[in-house]
């Protein structure tokens, strides 16, 4: 940002009238602002927010905020082969995402917490430059859940909550005609400073009301996993060869809904896309991939370590509730409920995990 | 004078009739627009809809499938199968809003060199006002 602002860095609490939200968005002109927009089928998805139509009375976006930071398609590099005086030259050009500061409004706490999980995956001893170029330019403005978007929410079972702050720069809580604004990072503070005059100091009853709204939201969550993180991981370790996976995956259709729409799933494929053959010109592109497709692990010899649906359902649960737990001590699931609600045949990981907890006891 | 738009046409020509017809046109030094990229196929019945969609995907401004007149097919029934399949492809492409002129089918026998040049001339004339095909094209 142009002028170096002095940022206190501590957490600020403000009040923003709902009707001033569009003018706040209008002030954020040096960012591309995304907000949920409803399509004709009552489904919500992020779209560039026209400053007049910004509204946050949405339930949950079908595609999580992950899709704006880890997009379905990411160009890695461009290659061009030119024949110059009988010698072939091959030029390989890195293509990093451009300079595009982004603010995403209406990020549910479960989606934001999932992004903090992705931050772990894409760092470590090999840092992913494409993810981080976008991640560093993205500011997440969360909206705490008043009522759970659908009855399959289970964030309380994955060490999260309808008002968790992990991964967010600002957390808004809907108090009816106003938002309780809580800045959590310097980026959050920067956004509030950009339209200081719109924000007011919170009254004591606002603070009380926020706690009430948060507590109320927690009580409304009806579904949850019986097992606790450590016990589930231990139970799963002993159930690799259990018949449970075959029974529960009988109706699986091997599609990509549960993983593409999962806010924490990050598996991908890398392919070359050829635009012209001679002279050879094309791009190396990353696209989403997922462990439920049959050929995800197939060797070019045809040997496939995970040949059937049972082994693939097992992989989805083991990776999220055992491998990731034993590597990062965090569950790679934030209980957003998308895979449970949108699976065409109703495979329900809450039910499967409860069967894991009941196994052998 | 602004460079006039020259449409690129991918034409699937049946080897026994239409391709022979186009050879005849060439041998007889007939004048006709050079916009066609001919692809010789064994029979119009062997033209898979995937080839047609792929041609548009790769930037063709127009696609032509040309085979033998009903009854002339070297394999007896190939062109009858093609007639049904290509008709469905044409209806599908129109349904999603592609300009109907961009996808044509014709019967051209080995002797009809003049008809072949006529079909191409008309096709080019119809495509010119439409400009380049950008709808289904893969953007580089």
């Amino acid at each position: 940002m142009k002028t170096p602002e002095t940022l206190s860095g501590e957490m600020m609490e403000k009040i923003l009238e709902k009707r001033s939200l569009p003018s706040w968005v209008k002030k954020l002109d040096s960012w591309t602002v995304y907000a949920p927009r409803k399509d004709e089928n009552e489904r919500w998805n992020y779209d560039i927010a026209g400053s007049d139509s910004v509204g946050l009375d949405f339930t949950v976006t079908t595609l999580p905020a992950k899709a704006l930071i880890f997009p379905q398609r990411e160009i890695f590099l461009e290659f061009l082969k030119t024949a110059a005086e009988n010698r072939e030259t091959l030029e390989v050009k890195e293509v990093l995402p451009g300079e595009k500061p982004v603010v995403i409004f209406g990020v549910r706490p479960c989606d934001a917490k999932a992004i903090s999980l992705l931050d772990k995956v894409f760092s470590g001893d090999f840092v992913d430059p494409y993810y981080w170029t976008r991640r560093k330019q993205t500011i997440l403005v969360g909206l705490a859940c008043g009522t759970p978007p659908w009855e399959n929410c289970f964030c309380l079972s994955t060490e999260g909550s309808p008002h968790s702050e992990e991964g967010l720069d600002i957390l808004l809580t809907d108090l009816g005609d106003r938002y309780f604004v809580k800045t959590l990072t310097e980026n959050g503070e920067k956004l509030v400073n950009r339209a200081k005059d719109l924000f007011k100091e919170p009254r004591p009853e606002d603070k009380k009301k926020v706690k009430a709204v948060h507590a109320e939201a927690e009580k409304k969550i009806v579904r949850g996993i019986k097992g606790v993180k450590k016990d589930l991981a231990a139970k799963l370790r002993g159930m690799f060869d259990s018949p449970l996976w075959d029974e529960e995956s009988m109706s699986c259709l091997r599609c990509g809904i549960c993983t593409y729409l999962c806010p924490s799933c990050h598996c991908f494929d890398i392919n070359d896309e050829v635009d012209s053959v001679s002279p050879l010109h094309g791009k190396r592109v990353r696209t989403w991939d997922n462990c439920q497709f049959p050929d995800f692990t197939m060797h070019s010899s045809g040997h496939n370590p995970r040949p059937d649906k049972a082994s693939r359902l097992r992989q989805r649960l083991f990776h999220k509730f055992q491998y990731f737990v034993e590597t990062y001590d965090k569950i790679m699931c934030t209980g957003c409920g998308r895979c449970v609600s949108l699976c065409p045949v109703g495979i329900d990981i809450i039910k499967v995990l409860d069967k894991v907890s009941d196994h052998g006891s | 004078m602004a460079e006039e738009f020259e449409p690129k046409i991918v034409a699937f020509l049946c080897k026994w009739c239409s391709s022979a017809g186009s050879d005849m046109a060439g041998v007889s030094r007939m004048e006709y627009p050079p916009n066609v990229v001919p692809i010789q196929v064994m029979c119009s019945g062997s033209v898979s809809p995937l080839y047609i969609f792929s041609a548009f995907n790769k930037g063709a401004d127009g696609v032509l499938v040309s085979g033998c007149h009903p009854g002339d097919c070297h394999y007896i029934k190939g062109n009858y199968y093609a007639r049904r399949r290509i008709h469905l492809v044409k209806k599908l492409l129109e349904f999603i809003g592609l300009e109907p002129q961009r996808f044509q089918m014709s019967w051209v026998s080995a002797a009809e060199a003049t008809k072949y040049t006529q079909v191409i001339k008309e096709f080019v004339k119809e495509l010119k006002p439409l400009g380049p095909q950008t709808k289904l094209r893969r953007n580089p």
Partner: protein
Amino acid sequence: MDHNVYIPKLAKIIQIKEEVGGARAIKTFRTVFTNGHGFDHRCGQCAMLSVFGKGESMISISSSPLVKDYLQFSILKMGRVTSALHEMEVGDLIGIRGPYGNGFPLDRWKGKKLLFIGGGIGLAPIWSVLQTALANKGEYGDLTLIYGARTSKDIVFKEELADLKNKMTVFLSIDVAEPGWEEFVGFVPQNVLDKKPAPANTIAITCGPPIMIKFVIKALKDLTFEDQQIYTTVENKMKCGIGKCGRCNIGLHYVCKDGPVYSWAELKRLPQEY
């Protein structure tokens, strides 16, 4: 952001040797990085080779780290990328990124006898550690190689194996008898049982098709080798090579980053999904 892990360095092919012809063709490539900056590697590490327009393929580096002036890859023609490599000529440019994987812990094997057991293209990952051990022979016990292939035509490094015979013990085998073949006839695991290597103070390293590895390990166990004396490489499908894309994930490990070299003691505890 420092160097982008996904961008390969350009390398020129300086030599191509056809090891095996026919449908299961194997060629050995020697490559040199074009604008100087390459990378050093350890025995048993791999590199992601890029044929632009076709894709990438993880191939083990078969030259020893002591060889500085080229990187050597022996490649079995298997799919899209490897077939494209087989059509390349000397002077063509490819992309190489790496080195990836943990490699063989050679320095932990000082003073031990080394028993190499390879099958078909499996000799390629073994070759880098074998050549390195051979180069400082004094630091290790005696070296033995048991290597087999389907037919005599399918044997790789034919010339190198010939002169290797007067430097260390080499037992070869082919699956089916051929006229003029005096050595062992049968599968590699049977050859191992036939030769009965003694497990005392020995490390066994085996690479080859998964089915062969399974029976070689069984044979070694029958010969009372301990789990931590047996090492192998896991050849899972790999795409990113840096433990992110999920393909080669077994248990807590990403084979491309935490493997591909495992002792049987470690591999036994991982889920049997490879």
